């Protein structure tokens, strides 16, 4: 540090044009402008929780974010608007489908970006106008494709202990990958955080042979997970996105559905705002809940189909719970990814 900035005076005196500052700020803290995550600016160090019943396109949103993250900003003169960074994906549900990611990436490379994304990109692109380059039309590029695929790093865990082992050694792994790729990790994805909830909860009641032993339980596992991620974020500033499936069924889910249905048809909070408690039951230990900085609720709407040019699609909605926002976004999932609908 001392070599770079010789004295405080020099540091204060240093001039920076708005252009270089903006460029610096945008590379240091790239925004994640992806529906439905675009409503609130997300920075590294944030912990975002995507909560919803299954299926509610949670993993799709993760994949879409991953594709945007691994794509370069520009490649051979074509603007892709990616973040040019690595993604680490921890699959606890064991349901990840690489073919889906591959398909979505190909769509993005082929330039079939979606309507609303284009609109948001427009704002983003204003920053790029200083480049003043002539925009080439994107074509499929095998080299770009394999570059992006290699930037996506994946691991599958079959139980909490594998998950903990992964987190404990993640620091070393990230360092290795960063050396290999020459770029840093931007997003750590966990799909989904509550996967081992029942198993861990049952082992809480395990007979205690010794009182002085830290026994594996829901509480200790969550504590360790949060502790490890917190330490990791100090060493490697990343955005953490975790999905969480709602697991309490029966009456709760029926009520949820009704509430959500109301929410969806009314399109304003006026009707449902009377019952403002969470539309699902929280089950993660408080240590995790307080760790989460942003929370988005996603779900499938009651009227599931909408007709588009290329067939029927399921309609989903998303709503920010933390920080609370007063609007409900609607989106559909198509071949090319997640699309906002008015």
């Amino acid at each position: 540090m001392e070599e770079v900035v010789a004295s405080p005076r020099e540091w204060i005196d240093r001039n920076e044009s708005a252009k270089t500052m903006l460029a610096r700020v945008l590379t240091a803290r790239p925004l994640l402008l992806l529906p439905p995550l675009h409503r609130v600016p997300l920075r590294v160090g944030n912990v975002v929780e995507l909560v919803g019943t299954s299926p509610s396109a949670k993993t799709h949103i993760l994949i879409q974010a991953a594709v945007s993250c691994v794509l370069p900003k520009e490649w051979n003169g074509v603007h892709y608007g990616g973040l040019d960074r690595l993604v680490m994906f921890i699959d606890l549900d064991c349901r990840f489908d690489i073919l889906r990611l591959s398909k979505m990436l190909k769509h993005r490379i082929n330039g079939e970006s979606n309507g609303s994304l284009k609109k948001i990109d427009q704002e983003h692109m204003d920053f790029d106008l200083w480049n003043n380059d002539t925009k080439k039309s994107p074509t499929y590029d095998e080299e770009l494709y394999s570059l992006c695929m290699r930037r996506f790093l994946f691991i599958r865990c079959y139980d909490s202990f594998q998950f903990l082992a992964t987190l404990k050694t993640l620091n070393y792994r990230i360092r290795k990958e960063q050396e290999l790729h020459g770029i840093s990790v931007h997003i750590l994805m966990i799909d989904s955080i509550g996967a081992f909830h029942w198993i861990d909860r049952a082992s809480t009641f395990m007979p205690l042979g010794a009182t002085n032993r830290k026994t594996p339980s829901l509480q200790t596992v969550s504590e360790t997970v949060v502790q490890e991620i917190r330490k990791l974020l100090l060493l490697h500033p990343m955005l953490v996105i975790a999905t969480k499936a709602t697991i309490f069924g029966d009456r709760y889910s029926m009520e949820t559905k009704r509430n959500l249905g109301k929410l969806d048809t009314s399109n304003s909070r006026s009707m449902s705002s009377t019952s403002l408690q969470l539309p699902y039951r929280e089950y993660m230990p408080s240590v995790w809940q307080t760790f989460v900085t942003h929370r988005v609720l996603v779900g499938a709407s009651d009227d599931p189909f909408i007709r588009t040019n290329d067939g029927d699609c399921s309609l989903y909605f998303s709503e920010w719970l933390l920080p609370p926002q007063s609007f409900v976004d609607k989106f559909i999932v198509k071949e090319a990814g997640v699309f906002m609908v008015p």
Partner: protein
Amino acid sequence: MAPLKYLEQEYPILDSNFQNFCATHGIFSGPFPPSNFSRIYSPILTPSFTFLGVRFAPILLLFWRCSLFDCSELKDTRRKHMKFRALHKKTEDQEDLLLHDLHVLVAFAEQQSTSERLKQGITQVLSIIDGQHQPWLNGMELLEDAQLNKHVLSTGCEGIDLLLEGGLRMGQLTELVGASSSGKTQVCLLATSNVAKKHMGGVVYLDTGNSFSPQRVIDFIRQNSDPAIDQAKHRILQKVMNRILCHSVFDIFTMFDVLHQLEVNLRSQMQKGDCQVRLLIVDSISSLVTPILGGGGSQGHALMASAGFLLKKLAHEHNLVVLVTNHTVGGEGGISKPALGESWKSIPHVRLRLSHDQGSSIYNVSVFKHPSMVSGKAARFTIYD
């Protein structure tokens, strides 16, 4: 027994000095008095342990979580009892290391006079931990595995195959949801015959309600075979039927036994390379799981989740198609709902809903959930009588 003792046997660097160091920082497997041990574990060490039910489920769970351990070995002798204890202690040591903050250890090691050796010990510990998770793969490696090993198997049921763009994918858990007589078992039997005949793959069929019908499978095999000389036909039929293995399973504990045994067999089969098992069917998983749910405890749910993870693990690691069925029960307002509900929902990759109009031979199938497909897509098919 001193903490970390069992790890020391394998890794000499984790010597008594290192163990003391860990102990002073709270990483400690407390002594496990033998009397206490046998009191807690003796019920499950007897052959009748499967009948003890839910109360001992958490202890059983511990066994399933410890992948080194095979449940069926438990049933015999003291020697194995001891072996289990060693394994258990070792796992316990490893769990201790996982649950504690190793950063603190590193920081303290810096200040110690013998820090070089302690640091080596910590490095050793980290490499032990590093061996406990699955390998990291990048997108290209994953894709390569998917393209090389995760093929699509046709079920022989045209409607379903068209709907799923080819059929059931290896490495995935597919679930059929439907009321009774909606064609779930028929689809299972059809898929069995098709995989055994057309794909020349082995089929393991876990039958929970005595609904497996060999005659029906033979009918399906005969139905789409070319007319040939009876003698040759008979030999082919025998060969195909030999690939199908049916187990009667009436409780979830037996299912775990069978699946663990299957895992062991699949591992040794990989080296030998004879007739590859391609399809694993549990018809129906809901009838095994529903009896252990309820009662307010979480053990039933834990067993269900463990079953789901075990099935998915088998599917991924041995490139199997796993097909399970889930019956429906009457829900609120007379609308039927799947017997395995909210918590099960997030387990399978693909959920298909089957229904059947009374009096017609047409079955309907629709996609509930699919990793790469729009849910709600539907198709119709008929099953030959």
